[in-house]
């Protein structure tokens, strides 16, 4: 009886800890999307720029950010300012560094996805819009972008789902997100249970995301 009680208490404590951590995981997830998608669009634009220097710089950016581990990028963004400039940015910087590194990294992937979508648009769509007198901005926002969004949605969904799981990498900066807490709880309890609960959290989160993205995809299926 005593043992069961204790087990339940441990379980409740674990759940509470993980739930608290989950809030932070959600914050990393949400803020990364918020920053990386516009940044990705910008880099995509730069990558397709006719100005060679801009285009090359964006290619280099994409190549490096995609070609090195996100974990390494997290460490560099966090420790970089200290080792390079000898400045200490305080404890809050852990979280900020996490958001910066995630956003920079995901922007590189989004940029390439957007580029694929934009380049898959036929020249005729631009030409029809031009001849009808639409301005460049109107053409982009009314004609091109809505179609590109539909085309890139499956790939973007992939990235979004990966991002949910990648938030666990923030552990490397000791950000108290869910995975960090799960690890701590697991070693304290000498049990694998916290990991399983964490896994369940990630999975349920992604299940929800999948559901939402499917709905969005369906809402755009009125044309092909």
């Amino acid at each position, binding site marked *: 009886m005593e043992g069961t009680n204790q087990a339940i208490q441990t379980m409740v404590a674990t759940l509470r800890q993980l739930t608290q951590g989950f809030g932070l995981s959600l914050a990393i997830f949400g803020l990364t999307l918020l920053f990386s998608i516009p940044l990705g669009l910008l880099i995509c634009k730069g990558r397709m720029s006719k100005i060679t220097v801009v285009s090359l710089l964006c290619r280099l950016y994409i190549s490096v950010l995609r070609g090195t581990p996100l974990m390494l990028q997290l460490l560099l963004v966090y420790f970089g300012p200290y080792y390079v400039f000898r400045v200490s940015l305080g404890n809050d910087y852990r979280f900020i560094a996490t958001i910066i590194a995630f956003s920079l990294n995901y922007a590189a992937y989004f940029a390439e996805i957007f580029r694929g979508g934009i380049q898959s648009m*036929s020249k*005729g*769509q631009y*030409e*029809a*819009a*031009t*001849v*009808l*007198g*639409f*301005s460049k901005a*109107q053409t982009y926002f*009314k*004609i091109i972008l*809505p*179609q590109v969004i*539909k085309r890139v949605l499956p790939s973007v969904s992939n990235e979004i789902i990966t991002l949910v799981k990648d938030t666990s990498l923030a552990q490397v900066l000791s950000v108290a997100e869910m995975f960090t807490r799960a690890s701590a709880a697991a070693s304290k309890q000498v049990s694998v249970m916290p990991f399983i609960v964490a896994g369940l959290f990630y999975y349920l989160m992604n299940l929800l995301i999948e559901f939402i993205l499917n709905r969005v995809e369906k809402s755009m299926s*009125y*044309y*092909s």
Partner: protein
Amino acid sequence: MSDVNNDIVLEIKDIHKSFDKLEVLQGIDITVERGEVVAVIGPSGGGKSTLLRCATTLEKVDSGKIVIGGDVLCDDVDGHSVYCDKKLEREIRSKFGLVFQNFNLFPHFSVRRNITEALIHVHKKSKEEADAICDGLLKKMDLEAKADEYPCNLSGGQQQRVSIARALATNPEIIFFDEPTSALDPELTKGVLTVIKELAQEKMTMVIVTHEMSFARDVADRIVFMDGGVIVEEGPAYELVTNPKQERTKAFLAGY
């Protein structure tokens, strides 16, 4: 005909256009009067489409002059074309319509929105005005029931008629057709040609690049035969088709 009917809608003077080293247009002159229907025929690669693309601002000419509806799109200065400013260029774009070979409808817009979007957002018409114009055109195109459909649910012929309606919506002074039936099977071609024929009867000014020889003969006032980047021969439609003077024209027409 009165003088008003005789004014010039399109004037193209000695235009040249090269892609890399290939000179696709080697000095083309065409004048189209109001109410006139001009068919441009000739073998593939002869420069027909490039001519149309230059006249519709989709390509820039290297030298020569283009005047549309009285506005100078570009003028020749010392052997090089100088284009008008962007503002005038946009104004000129509202003076002509272009119908593409593969329609280029906006797939994410309904038929109605394909037709009204430019009216509302470029020509600043109210939604009601735009809808009224759209309804009238769809009736004319025999597509009244399709206003709320999306292009993917229409046949090729219907899509092309929508794109003609879209080009007509802004009440242009001239409409260019770039092989409007080349992407359609013969059955669907008929409907599109009928629509163009009706426009010709209404004295719509049109320039039509086409491979439909009998259509060109029956509908156009004048035919221009292009090959190798030059106009080889031009003349009244019926005469050019039935009694061509140049050897190259004869050889080309013999293939039909």
